[in-house]
């Protein structure tokens, strides 16, 4: 058997894992206490109207746990249930968790895997997004960190993309995608000439993990490996920068500069070229170590603001 095949089997893929498997691998063994678990049967009050199946946890697992001995509040979205989308209960659970973290003066880790808001309960979902943003900002201005981990099948889209933008730090892997409008939405609204959602390599050059890391849209790039996510989460929880007006102003200035610098680029690879990456065409094919070595010096950083 080739080396590559055996390697594939040893690694536990974050992309492949369920929400519960990710939490189990991320947190200290046996430390997780779930809030409103499946036994509580807090299911969506709306899905039945559309003859859609419900799930007892409404596609999100929340609770408190330890991460290398430190207590944290954690939430994990299940991308396999309705694409990890936010509904009324799903959203309320995350709002509640973030508020509880604030009350308990703890950091939060969010395992995001979502296509955005559920169309079937859009109003409740959109309201939940705003409440989540408010709760994250409250937690951060209080001096606590909110770490987002993104590398699931559904990516992190729609309201999820905005939530990601509010986190203290984002950890992303290559298959992870972060954006507000998804590929199909862009194609539908602006035409296939603007964006071909079937061209998956283009999608990843535009919103994939490597591109987001290169442009400061994510702070940490890891292998598609639960152990790598854990190590990165521990490392990123260590340093804390409270969210202040001056941090936000610095970020605003950076984003303005970014628009000036890359605004005319037609493709992610042109942005990489402008950043000064040698041989940008080879970026997608690089493994993690190769990639980090090639881009660490030239990538943009988000100055802890997002």
């Amino acid at each position, binding site marked *: *058997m*080739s080396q590559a*095949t055996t*390697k594939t089997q040893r690694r536990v893929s974050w992309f492949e894992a369920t929400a519960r498997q990710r939490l189990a691998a991320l947190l200290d063994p046996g430390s997780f206490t779930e809030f409103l678990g499946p036994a509580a049967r807090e299911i969506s009050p709306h899905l039945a109207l559309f003859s859609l199946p419900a799930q007892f946890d409404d596609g999100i697992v929340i609770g408190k746990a330890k991460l290398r001995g430190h207590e944290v509040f954690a939430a994990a979205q299940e991308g396999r249930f309705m694409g990890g989308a936010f509904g009324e209960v799903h959203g309320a659970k995350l709002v509640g968790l973030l508020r509880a973290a604030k009350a308990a003066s703890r950091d939060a880790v969010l395992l995001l895997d979502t296509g955005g808001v559920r169309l079937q309960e859009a109003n409740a979902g959109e309201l939940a997004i705003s409440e989540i943003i408010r709760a994250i900002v409250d937690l951060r201005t209080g001096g606590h960190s909110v770490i987002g981990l993104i590398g699931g099948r559904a990516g992190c889209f729609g309201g999820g993309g905005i939530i990601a933008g509010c986190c203290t730090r984002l950890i992303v892997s290559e*298959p992870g995608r972060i954006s507000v409008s998804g590929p199909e939405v862009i194609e539908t609204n602006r035409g296939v000439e603007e964006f071909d959602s079937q061209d998956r390599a*283009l999608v990843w050059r535009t919103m994939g993990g490597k591109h987001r890391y290169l442009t400061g849209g994510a702070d940490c790039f890891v292998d598609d490996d639960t152990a790598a996510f854990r190590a990165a989460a521990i490392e990123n929880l260590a340093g804390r920068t409270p969210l202040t007006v001056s941090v936000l102003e610095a970020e605003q200035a950076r984003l303005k500069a970014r628009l000036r610098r890359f605004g005319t680029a037609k493709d992610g690879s042109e942005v990489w070229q402008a950043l000064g990456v040698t041989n940008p065409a080879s970026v997608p094919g690089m493994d993690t170590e190769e990639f980090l070595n090639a881009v660490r010096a030239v990538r943009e950083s988000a100055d802890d603001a997002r």
Partner: protein
Amino acid sequence: MPGKNWTTQKAALAERIEAGGRYATGKLVQPGDLGEFFEAVLRAGDRVCLEGDNQKQADLLAQALAELNPARVHGLHMVQSGIVLPEHLDMFEKGIAKRLDYSYSGPQSARIARMLFSGKIELGAVHTYLELFARYFIDLTPNVALIAAVSADRDGNLYTGPNTEDTPTVVEATSYKSGLVVAQVGEIVERVPRVDIPGDLVHFVVPAGKPFFVEPLFTRDPAAITETQILTAMLAIKGIYAPYNVRRLNHGIGFNTAAIELLLPTYGEQLGLRGQVCTHFALNPHPSLIPAIEAGWVEQIHCFGSEVGMEDYIAARPDVFFTGPDGSLRSNRAFCQTAGLYACDMFIGSTLQIDLAGNSSTVTTNRVAGFGGAPNMGSDPHGRRHPSAPWLQAGKEADDTTPPLLRRGRKLVVQIGESFGAKNEPLFVERLDALSLAEKLNLELAPVMVYADDVTHIVTEEGIANLLLCRDKDEHEQAIRGVAGYTEIGRQRDRKMVERLRTRGVIQRPEDLGIDPLDADRNMLAARSMKDLMTASGGLYQPPSRFRNW
């Protein structure tokens, strides 16, 4: 017959060559002159083979043909493998073409059904590839063949590259029967890397300035393989591949067989089957077979066509693939279909509908997808005479009364799928949609992909039905119901009879084979993503853009 002219066809060819030559420099015709060129060489009612199948397409020639003025060129009889490009149907819409004999129409299945229904197309028949090729030599010989190649020299010698596919067959039938051969090529070169088609069979060459279109039809993203598909794959490997020792075979195109390919180096290895099964294939170069090839499972593969992105990998594994002196793959659809028919002991593939008799079809009421090669692979060849262990064993199971020396063997023809398929449509039905379609279009034959009397096994997540062991119609029907899960067909089973069939081994459940469905886990796949496949190939496999999530 005194006085009869025996050389009218040669004379007609000479006329066409002379007429076409007015738009050519030597053999070269520029793309901009194609309209006038075609008007000069085509005659109303000509039998035309426009090359194109489920993979490669003579796309430039198709476009030029569809843009002709129907007042000048009309009533063509198209005899071609594939109705795939929109232009293939545009020419019927405009009246440039009238009659059609073909094989495969996957991407145009809905439009061709509408056009057949509205009478825009006069249908001869829908064939399997091999059948249509056969008819090229008997009663559907083309007057003109429009083909595609990678490059040509100025004498018209053609290099077809890894996607040779139908070209030699089409040229053989056309050129040696005084037909005209026109080739589109990506580029004109001083010397072609290898001569796939000798220049004296090719009359005109059109430098297209770009490669012909090829569809990556056989690429299955391992990320989309479900655990139910993994379970059916485990059942097939342990319940069919192992006991019959199936070494020579063809796999269908679906995710179930991709799962089998990806389980060989893991589950198959655990079962100790390396070298015992899956050593020789008639198969396109499926990317999902890379881990098995790398793990030393596969001795030899002959290919119908190539697969986009697999070129460098194939060139680096000439012990496994058929390659030319230039190093690249030589594929040949006609030979590979023949190999699949006569030299393989098993065909396994998925389908959309299976009826109570065991007939299967991929047709739905409003779509005519054609056949391609599956019915040929999935049929028991009565002309076969050489013995092999799986063939003899299947023959014995089907017939335990005839003396062994007079008993035919049987090819294993396995249908594999989940009891509820895509969009939760039941795999098992009382009546095939193909029958409604045949009634609607007044066809003489319903488009059945694999006939009931050819099917030997059906595999679903509920188990394996061995139809060879059924002794009457009742048993046959209950064996099918017995693996039909919670579909209507499955729920109407005679439970007692199904249990009796199970004790006889006609039906085998996962537990009968020592398989725990909970073991069907994606971690069993030797590759779980396109990137894993690329890595397993040592970076030689370069997946097309649309399959990359990096």
